C-alpha cells in the first residue's frame, strides 16, 4: 500500500457559499490522522486562503492535496488570468480584487502573504493569460 494519499478537489467559481468546502474537508480528514494541531492549523488556513483566491481571481480551478509521512503538499491550479507581477502580488495589502468582492469583506490584499506565512515552502508559477499554479508545503515534525 502506498504511503501517500492524494485528494483532488474542483473549485467552482464565484460561488461564495461553497468557497472553503475543499479546505474544510481536508481539515476534517487531517484531524482524524494524529497530526500535531499546529500542522492542521497551517494547512487549513493556507489552503482556505488559496481556495478563496481561486474563486475571487481565477474562476475556480483544481486543488490537489498530497499527504505523505513527511509533508503535506497543496497544489492550487487554475486557468485564470495569471499574475502579472508576482513580487507585487506578494506585498501585504496589495489587491486587485474588484469592488463587488471587497464589499463581501474579501480583497484585503493578505491572501498570498498569508499563504506564505502559514506554509513552510511556497512557489508560484504564473503566465498571464494562461493560469497560475501555487504549490505550498507544510512539513510534518
Amino acid at each position, binding site marked *: *500500500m*502506498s*504511503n*501517500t*494519499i492524494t*485528494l483532488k478537489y474542483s473549485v467552482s467559481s464565484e460561488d461564495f457559499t461553497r468557497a*472553503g468546502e475543499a*479546505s*474544510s474537508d481536508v*481539515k476534517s*480528514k487531517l*484531524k*482524524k*490522522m*494524529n*497530526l500535531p*494541531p*499546529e500542522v*492542521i*492549523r497551517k494547512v*487549513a*488556513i493556507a489552503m*482556505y486562503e488559496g481556495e478563496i483566491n481561486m474563486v475571487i481571481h481565477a474562476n475556480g480551478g483544481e486543488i490537489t492535496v498530497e*499527504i*505523505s*509521512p513527511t509533508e503535506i503538499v497543496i497544489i492550487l491550479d487554475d486557468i485564470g488570468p495569471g499574475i502579472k507581477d508576482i513580487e507585487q502580488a506578494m506585498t501585504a495589502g496589495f489587491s486587485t480584487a474588484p469592488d463587488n468582492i471587497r464589499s463581501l469583506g474579501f480583497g484585503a490584499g493578505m491572501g498570498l502573504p498569508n499563504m506564505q506565512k502559514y506554509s513552510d515552502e511556497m512557489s508560484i508559477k504564473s503566465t498571464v493569460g494562461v493560469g497560475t499554479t501555487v504549490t505550498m508545503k507544510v512539513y*510534518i515534525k
Partner: protein
Amino acid sequence: MTDFEHSVHLNSDLCKGCINCIKRCPTQAIRVRNGKATIISEFCIDCGECIRVCPHHAKLATYDPIDVLKNYEYKVALPAPSLYAQFNNLDDINIVLNALKLMGFDDVYEVSSAAEMVSEMSRRYVADNKKKRPFISTACPTIVRLVSIRFPNLIEHLLPFNAPVDIAASLARKKAIENTGLPSDKIGVIFISPCPAKVTACKKPIGIDKSDVDAVIAIKEVYPVLLPLMKQVVDMPEELSSSGRIGVSWGNSGGESGGMLTDSYLAADGIENVIRVLEDLEDEKINRLEFIELNACSGGCVGGVLTVENPYVAQAKLKHLCKYLPVACNHLNTDYIDEAFLQKPIEYNPVFKLADNFMDSIAAMSRINELCDKFPGLDCGSCGAPTCKSLAEDIVRGVASEHDCIEVLRKYIKQKSKELNNK
C-alpha cells in the same frame, strides 16, 4: 456514581432502532447496532440533541431525584437563571427563591450572582490579555467538551474560568460552613439544572478535580413542585435575591456577552451554528472580536432539554424579569477570586483519531477513501451509521463491515445468485 460518564443515555427497551438520533447527533456519536442505538461515550458531548429528537423517548438524561435532599443536614439550592424563565406572570425572583425554601432547602445561592462575578472578571481578563483574543466563553460545558475533542487550536482561546455554577457552589459551601459550623459532608449544595451537560460537568468535570456541586436536579422535576409553593409566598416574599440584570440575563443567549460591556462580540446558539463559528474561528476568519459566547442550545440555557417552557417564550419572560432589576448586585473587592479559575488546563483529547500514529492513519485514510468510492453516497443510515463516510471510518476502526451497507450487500447477493445460476 463512580462509573459515571455521561448524563445522556439510552433506554434500550424503548429504542426502536430508527435513525433519527444518529442523523441529528452533531459529533456522530450514535450508531444503531443490532436494532438498538448505542452512544459512543468518547464522542458524546451531552448536548441533548438526541433527547430532543427521539420520537420514542428512548434517550434520557440522568440526574438526581428530588429525594436527594434527604441525604444532607443543611441544603443549599443553586437555581440556574433559566429556572426563573419557566413561570408565567412572574415579576419577582424572590417568589421562586422563597418557594425553594418551602420545598426543603435551608438557603439559596443564585447562580446568577456568581455569573455577575464571572462577567466582572472576564471583562478584566479580556482587557489584560489582548494578544489571546478572541476569548471563548467556558460557561456551556458542551462547548468546552466539543472544543477539547475537536478544536485543539482553539483551546488557548478559552477563558480560564469555571462555569458560574461551579463558582456559586464553592462560595455557597463556604457560606454554609460559616453560617452553620457543620462539616462539609453534612452540607448539600444542589444545582437546579436546565440541561444534562451540566449534570455531566458536575459529576465528571473538566478543568477541576471535583465540583463543589453535590447533586443536580432537573428544572422540569422541580417546576411542578414549586408552582403551588409559589402561590403560598406570593404576598410577602423574603428578600433573598442578590443578582441584577447582568447575572440573570446569562440564561439567554447573548446575556453573557451583554455583561462584557463591549460591542466586540458574537453570540451563537444552537449546536450546528456554534460548530460553524468554531470552524471559522479555527481558520482565523473571525479575529477582530474580543469575545465569543457559544451556547449549545437554541436560545441559550433557557433552551436546555431539562426545561419546561418554549425557549423563545422563556427568553421573553427572562427579559421581562430583568426590566425591574438593577444592572448588577455583585462587585468584587479584588481583581479575581481563587474559586473562579480552572485548576488544570483543558487538554486536547483526540477521540476521533483513526490510528495511534500518523503512518497508520495514512493507511486508514486511504482505505476510507476507497470504501467511500464503493458506497452509494446516499447517507441513508440503514447501516446504522449516520453517513457513508462514518461507516467507512467504523470499518477501518474494526467495528463495522462492508456488508452493513445494504447497497453493497445487494450487489454481493446479486453476484452470488448469478454465480449459482451459471453453475
